[in-house]
């Protein structure tokens, strides 16, 4: 009897461990199929599986990845997560990374992987599908869609001719109380970082202080700014380009439009892009994925569903936006937009935060 119950407790602990192990193996499909296909594992060689680490949300890219599967017959499995977290995971995984493709929300994360030599060079024929402004210099990542900084304005309250060509024009006292901004918003902060990189610390501070003197109305993000513009609460607002289409798509008469400043931080373009992870077992397969994301079908999907700028040459822009080639965007190294601490310190210092 004594022995029985002694075995019972040992059994309980061991059983708990075994249950976890067995259940884990039994119920979860092998996720490392695409990685190091062994000779005994014939299945993995018959149906290639592309493993994608996506920092872009499933609601944004899920549908188009599904279409890629259907049209090419290539099976994919996607791990969704934060852009930065997934980049860090690939760095930590080292040579055992299951990822073939890394799909990032911004260029900085792609640059971080490229700097650590974790991305393969993309073939020139694929790279040439996109203007070289939106690819990495060494051809290790490629832009798929772009996000532009814009000045949105209420078309009933402002005529286009009143709008300045430079962000410095908004320091004029005539804009007092009519500007909307969102200093706590990430995209605004990266605009300020861009301003610091392009024009230097002193000028950036001078611009921010000038805007502060015009008593801007503070909003919690881009969407509330576009809403406030629609209500006529403010005349102009500093936002990213793709928020407005969420209003004009269902309601074409929505009284707000884009204005682009010329070659300053106000018209900066950041990209969402793709890199091929160096641990991939099938680079050709990965390049087919990139080609598909730059195909007319996928680029139209992005232009009309996520309202970002399609980056493939000759891709059609949605709505009333001007083609990306016509935006006089500043030449800024997107990899240098990593000093958020400095930007936050500056915004705090001028009491914008």
């Amino acid at each position, binding site marked *: *009897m*004594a022995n029985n*119950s*002694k075995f*019972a*407790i*040992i059994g*309980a*602990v061991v059983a*708990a*461990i075994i*249950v*976890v*192990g067995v*259940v*884990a*193996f039994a*119920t*979860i*499909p092998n*996720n*490392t199929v695409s990685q190091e296909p062994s000779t005994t594992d014939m299945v993995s060689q018959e149906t290639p599986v592309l*493993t994608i680490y996506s920092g872009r*949300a*499933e*609601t*944004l890219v899920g549908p188009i990845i599904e279409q890629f599967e259907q049209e090419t017959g290539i099976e994919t*499995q*996607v*791990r*969704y*997560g*934060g852009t*930065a*977290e*997934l*980049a*860090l*995971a690939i760095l*930590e*995984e*080292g040579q*055992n*990374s*299951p990822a073939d493709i890394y799909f990032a929300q911004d260029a*900085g*994360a792609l640059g*971080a992987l490229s700097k650590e030599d974790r991305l393969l060079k993309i073939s020139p024929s694929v790279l040439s599908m996109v203007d070289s402004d939106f690819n990495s210099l060494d051809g290790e990542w490629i832009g798929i869609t772009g996000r532009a900084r814009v000045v949105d304005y209420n078309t009933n309250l402002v005529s286009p001719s009143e709008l300045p060509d430079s962000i410095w024009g908004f320091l004029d006292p005539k804009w007092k109380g009519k500007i909307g901004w969102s200093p*706590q918003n990430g995209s605004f902060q990266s605009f300020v970082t861009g301003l610091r990189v392009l024009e230097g610390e002193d000028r950036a501070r001078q611009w921010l202080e000038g805007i502060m003197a015009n008593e801007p109305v*503070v909003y*919690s*993000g881009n*969407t*509330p700014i576009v809403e406030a513009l629609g209500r006529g609460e403010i005349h102009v607002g500093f936002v990213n380009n793709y928020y407005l289409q969420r209003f004009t798509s269902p309601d074409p008469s929505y009284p707000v439009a884009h204005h682009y400043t010329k070659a300053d931080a106000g018209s900066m373009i950041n990209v969402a892009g793709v890199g091929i992870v160096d641990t991939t077992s099938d680079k050709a397969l990965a390049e087919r994925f990139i080609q598909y994301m730059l195909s007319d079908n996928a680029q139209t999907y992005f232009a009309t569903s996520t309202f970002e700028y399609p980056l493939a040459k000759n891709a059609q822009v949605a709505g009333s936006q001007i083609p990306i080639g016509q935006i006089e965007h500043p030449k800024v190294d997107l990899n240098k937009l*990593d*000093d*958020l*601490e400095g930007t936050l*310190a500056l915004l705090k210092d001028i009491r914008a*935060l």
Partner: protein
Amino acid sequence: MVLLNLKPFRHGHARAPFLFIIVGIIVAFAMILPLAYLGIRASEAGTDALSILVSFRTLEVFANSAVLALVVTALSAVIAVVGAFLTVRTDLPAKKFWSVVFVLPLAIPSFVGSFALIATFAPRGSVVHNLLLPLGIDVLPSIYGWPGAILALTIFTYPYVFLTTRTSLRGMDPALEEVSRSLGRGMLSTIRRVTLPHLYPSIAAGSLLVAFYVLSDFGTPALMRFDSFTRIIYVEYQLAFDRVSSAILSLLLVTLVGVILYLEHRVRSKAAYYSLGPGTKRQPTMLTLGRWKGPALVFCCTIATLGIFIPVGVLLYWFFQGIVAGEVFPDILGITLNTVYAAALATLVIVSLAVPMALLSVRFPSKSTSFIERISYLGFAMPGIVVALSLVSFGAKHLPALYQSMSMLIFAYVILFIPLSIGAIRTSLLQVSPRVEEAARSLGSNASRTLFKITMPMIKTGMLSGAALVILTIMKELPATLLLSPIEFRTLATQVWAGSENASFSYAALPALVLVAISAISVTIILSQDKVIARR
């Protein structure tokens, strides 16, 4: 070889059963993993380490976080103790309902909770602002910074203290208070001099959890625009992809955690919390609230409003907005089953490991067992992303077969959340006299029979509270789930996150509502297992 030996119960002289020691070593090893990872990464900085620590406004922000942890912990303890008293020891109406409600804020993902509080109390455009606007109030005092961070963190973490305190209060021998009363002490004096001191271990156990949660949380400070130390760590990760600087900063955080753990251990009372006599367990005297019933209900309603009603209200608003906009929701049933499956499995493993851990620390106190018990807090006290990345590094390089499998995810949950369960079980165990176990042994019951038939039934409340804390916390866990789960394994928390990432709140609303509902059901089931107060 003696695998299980509970025989010698003289404190401090006993030799712990071999099996328990094995469990202790395994847990300690698991906790060393993230620590070793941080050490390795930090060592890559070489002599730059010092300049990294000094180059940020490190100390100022570090002090911010420490003070925040202190304030939130104190407030949480007050709310939790009052709540536990009201729901266990008074004639408060609908006590069972309130018991569940007091736990539920734990189920709210921090982004949802903070967002809801902001939507309600923000200086402009919030619900309260719109209500007060006709009265000529143009702008509300800002919720951002200290007030918001303190409010949100207190409201969504006090349940850690509430559940442990409730456990002790239920396990307390009423005779202790009766003796005090019969010796002429009044009710309030008895509570202050007898009951509260009896609750110290459980309040301390819960408070540690709150303090560590505050120190390691990122989501709430970010939304409340509070300059917390985790924000600096995250900026290093998010924008600079700098694993070395963030490791050095994380080690500074771990040092503070170590100091707190050491201090708490030093002041920990060596007093006995069990009755020495045979002690019958009876229903303790219920306090009649009388004219305090009104204020008590106001207190309960306020906490419930801030912690549950407001967040759920905001979620329902988003949900119906989504329906109006024709939002399509993903396969919610499959995702819910995934969530429950992973969380329940992990909870089972964690509680099975936590019982031996608690027994080790209470029944076999020694330097090494206290060290093992203390170190088990480490995973919980580190930012989730640090633990997740350490396991990514360890798993991909050394256990490729298990990497991103369900076992790996469960292992991560064990590292992150085992102290939630150990604390609750430990405080329960403190109330069980070792003499009861001795008596069982002397009557011929062997060690494991004594454990299963005598000890475990008496610490049932603690085990159940621990399980409730663990399962609720796992269901909303994010960083480890995103990086370590089997690929394409979605949980309610990852779907809530996906919606919030995309600023599509109506998409986040349904999974978040289901998360709260499942949590409510889990808590109700778990707490209802714990009916028996009079155990013999």
